[in-house]
């Protein structure tokens, strides 16, 4: 167990929804960052939506490698993206009042090396189709992470979506 597990900040989406959940001015006083995200998007015609995380406002130099299950099948893939996959939520066709659940870990977020990210994410739905998603991401940038932005792709995040950012030492 980590010697410290400290809440840095949290975001709760209010009525009307939001385009993103954002953390700024992240202090450099911890070793690792941990995000717990409970999200749902308004994307129509889907049971789940893609969650994307960007650092320091950058939309370049991200790569990703994942394993997923859809409730009936599996797949694995990789790619160069404009964000790290993370914070995946349910979407408009999923059971009402149901949100995804994501764990995002960012070790050594202030180091001068590239930033590795691991995520395990699930969506839920009272049907066979729901997503389980394991991902390893890389942001090929040496800057310390000072801000994090979480979006649904496509769509907006709906009311009661939450994100909690913790510092781990």
């Amino acid at each position, binding site marked *: 167990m980590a010697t410290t597990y400290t809440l840095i900040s949290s975001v709760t989406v209010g009525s009307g929804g939001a385009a993103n959940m954002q953390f700024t001015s992240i202090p450099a006083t911890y070793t690792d960052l941990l995000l717990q995200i409970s999200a749902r998007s308004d994307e129509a015609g889907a049971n789940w939506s893609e969650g994307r995380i960007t650092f320091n406002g950058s939309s370049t130099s991200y790569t990703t490698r994942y394993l997923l299950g859809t409730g009936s*099948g599996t797949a694995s893939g990789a790619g160069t993206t404009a964000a790290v996959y993370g914070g995946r939520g349910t979407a408009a066709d999923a*059971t009402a009042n149901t949100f995804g659940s994501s764990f995002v870990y960012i070790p050594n977020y202030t180091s001068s090396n590239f930033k590795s990210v691991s995520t395990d*994410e699930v969506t*839920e739905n009272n*049907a066979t189709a729901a997503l389980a998603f394991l991902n390893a991401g890389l942001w090929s940038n040496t800057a310390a992470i000072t801000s994090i932005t979480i979006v649904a792709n496509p769509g907006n995040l709906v009311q009661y979506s939450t994100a909690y950012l913790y510092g781990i030492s």
Partner: protein
Amino acid sequence: MAITSIKTGSSFKNLIKYNDFLAGNAAFQPTAYESIATVTVGAGGSSTITFSSIPSTYQHLQIRGIIKSSRTGSARNDLIIKLNGSSTTYAHHQLYGDGASAAALGTASTTQGLLGINCVPSSGYTSQFGVVVADILDYANTNKNKTIRSLAGTDNNGAGFTSLSSALWYATPVAVTSIDLTVDGAYNFEQYTKFGLFGIKGA
């Protein structure tokens, strides 16, 4: 031991004198991660582990466990979760691998949630236990159904599984106040199975 005074000639050298006793010390940071309860199964085993009277004062809950079941003859053994004593309105999904291939499953409108393949059977695996870490985010939120995410696995030195699972309790959203854990198939937890329930603060 409280330090009440430091005299000249002691081993403390070149100390800065502050008028405020907090100055010069690192600020105390209370942890956001606290133990709520722990259960260890005794001799004779146990059919159900229950965490009850869970306070609503945290933002998230986490369950951590090491598990052995009384089942014999099978390496696959699932951990079951039920919330607030309910046996209705669950769904569950799983992505799992057995060391050779990956597979997925999904079940709707069922009586229980799965927390993954993590119960090592008693036969042939004397000193081995499976593991699970499960999170219930926003467990006291009355606007959200409860989604449980869990990472689990067993390694039996030649067989085993790893899994990422989710369970949904889609009854009218209420705060989670109790959690029941059992082994799929009505087997018992064996001695030394251990679960911890932790609260993670959000304010």
